C-alpha cells in the first residue's frame, strides 16, 4: 500500500501512453473550441519525459516528479506546458526526498499540484478547464482516504470523480483559456485539458491498482 519509485514512474509512463493513444482525440477536442494542438503538445512533452526518465533514475520520487515537471515546462508550451509543468513541479516539491509514498503522501502531493495549477492559472471550478477534473479528483481521494478506504479504492473513487468532472465540462461556457474567446459557442464541447487530466488520474488508478497499491493490498 505504498507507491514505490518504480510505480510512480510506471504511472508517468502510463500517462504518456494514454496521451499518445489519445493524441488525435485530444487534438480534435481542442480543434472544436481551441487551436487543435493539445494532443500534439502533450504528446511531444510526454515523449520528452520518457526520453528523460529512460536516461537514468532520479534520486527519489520527488526528484522524479520535478524532472517530469521541468521537462513539460520546457517542451510543451501553450497553456498546457506551464499548467501540467506546475502540477508535477508542485507534486515533486510535496514529495521531495521521499523514496516511496503512502496514500496520504500521494494525496498531499496531488493536492499540492492542483493548488499550484490553480495559483498559476486562476481558474475556478466550473470555468471549463482541467481544474474541473482535478479538483473533484483530489476531493474524492481525500474523502475516501479520510473514510479509511484503501488506496486502491480511493484511487478508483478519485478516477470516477475525475470522469464526472470531465464530462461536466461539456455544457459549460468556458471562462478561462482559449475556449473562453468563443463565448456561448464553447458550450456542448468537452474541454481538452479536462480530458487529458482525466487520463492522468485514471492512469494513477490503473497503475497503482495493478501493483502493490492495488485495492486488495490494504
Amino acid at each position: 500500500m505504498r507507491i514505490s519509485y518504480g510505480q510512480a514512474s510506471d504511472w508517468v509512463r502510463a500517462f504518456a501512453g494514454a496521451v499518445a493513444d489519445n493524441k488525435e482525440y485530444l487534438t480534435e477536442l481542442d480543434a472544436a473550441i481551441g487551436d487543435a494542438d493539445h494532443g500534439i503538445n502533450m504528446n511531444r512533452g510526454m515523449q520528452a519525459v520518457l526520453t528523460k526518465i529512460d536516461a537514468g533514475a532520479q534520486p527519489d520520487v520527488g526528484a522524479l516528479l520535478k524532472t517530469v515537471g521541468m521537462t513539460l515546462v520546457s517542451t510543451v508550451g501553450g497553456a498546457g506546458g506551464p499548467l501540467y509543468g506546475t502540477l508535477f513541479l508542485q507534486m515533486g516539491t510535496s514529495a521531495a526526498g521521499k523514496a516511496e509514498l503512502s496514500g496520504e503522501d500521494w494525496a498531499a502531493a496531488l493536492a499540492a499540484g492542483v493548488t499550484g495549477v490553480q495559483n498559476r492559472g486562476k481558474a475556478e471550478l466550473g470555468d471549463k478547464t482541467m481544474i474541473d477534473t482535478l479538483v473533484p479528483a483530489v476531493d474524492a481521494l481525500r474523502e475516501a482516504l479520510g473514510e479509511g478506504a484503501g488506496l486502491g479504492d480511493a484511487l478508483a473513487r478519485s478516477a470516477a470523480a475525475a470522469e464526472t468532472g470531465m464530462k461536466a465540462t461539456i455544457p459549460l461556457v468556458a471562462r478561462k483559456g482559449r475556449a473562453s474567446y468563443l463565448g456561448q459557442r464553447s458550450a456542448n464541447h468537452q474541454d481538452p485539458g479536462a480530458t487529458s487530466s482525466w487520463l492522468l488520474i485514471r492512469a494513477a488508478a490503473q497503475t497503482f491498482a495493478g501493483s502493490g497499491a492495488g485495492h486488495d493490498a490494504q
Partner: protein
Amino acid sequence: MKKLINDPADVVKEALQGVAAAHADRVRVLTEPNVVVRADAPVQGKVGLVSGGGSGHEPMHGGFVGMGMLDAACPGEVFTSPTPDQMLAATKAVDGGAGVLHIVKNYTGDVLNFEMAADLASSEGVEVQAVVINDDVAVQDSLYTAGRRGVGATVLAEKICGAAAEQRRSLAEVADLCRRVNANGRSMGMALTSCTVPAAGKPTFELGASEVEIGIGIHGEPGRERRELAPVHDIVSMLATPIVEDLPYNSGDSVLAFVNSMGGTPLIELYIVYNELNKFLSGRGITITRNLIGPYITSLEMQGCSITLLKLDDELTALWDAPVNTPGLRWGV
C-alpha cells in the same frame, strides 16, 4: 494536407534554418532552445525587446527582429506558446543593462510561460517588465474570463516600442508606451477558410462554400459567429464598426490603419478591403494618416483578413516613421 514541408515535426526547425541562412546580416538563430536574436545583441544601454508566441504567424515575431524593432523573438511550435527556457535565453541574450521588456499577447499559454520566464530572469538579476497586448474586440472582455486576445496591435507595439528603445528611453518609459499603444489599438479579424496545423494534418474547422467566420483569432480557432459570405463592403463594416465603437474612435481622430492578410488572402483583395475601410472611416470623420497593408500577423495559409486601428498622436506617428530594419518591416534605412 498539401504544404511545402518535409516532416510536420520539423516545420519550425527547418523554417528557422531558412531564416538563419537568409538573414544572417540582421539576425542570429539560436537553437536548444530556439530564439531569433538581433545580430548585434545585446545593444549596450538599450532596453531589450523580447516577444514570442506560437509559430505560424510569420513574419511575426521572428521577422520583426532587427534594428528599430525587436531584439529577440521566441518561436514556439505551430500555434503553441513557446516555453520559459526560450524566453529566458532570449532575455539574457538581449539584456544590454537597461532591462528587458516582454511584449506578450494575451493568451493563457503566452502569459503563463512569460510569467515563469520573467521570474527566472529576475532571479538571475535581469530587470524585466511585461506588457500584455489585448486588442481583439471580437472577444467579450470580462474580469472573469481570459479577456481579449492580443492580435494586430502587437505588430504596431513592437515597431513603436522598438523605435523608442533605439532612442534609449528607459524600461519604464518603453513599457508605458507599449501600454499606450495597446490602449489606443483595436482589432478584429475574419476567415474565409480554415487553416491546417501541420502536425494535425487536417483543417481546424470546416467552412461551407459560402460561409465565413467573423471574429476569429490567429490560431485557426473558430470565431464568434459563422455567417453567409457578404460583399467586402459589408464585411468591412462588420469588422470596423465594433472597432471604432469600442475605443471609441471619433470624428477628428487620426489613425494608423493596418489591413492584414491571415496568410492566404492576396494583396489585390487587401487593397479592396483598404479601399472600403478608408471610405468607412472617412464617413465617420476619421482620417487614416498611416497604413500598413499585407500579411504581417498570419494564421498559416488561412484566407481572410483583420483590421487594426491605432489612434495616432504626433509622438506615436514619429515613432512609427522612425527607421526599422528587419526582414519583415523595413524603412528609413
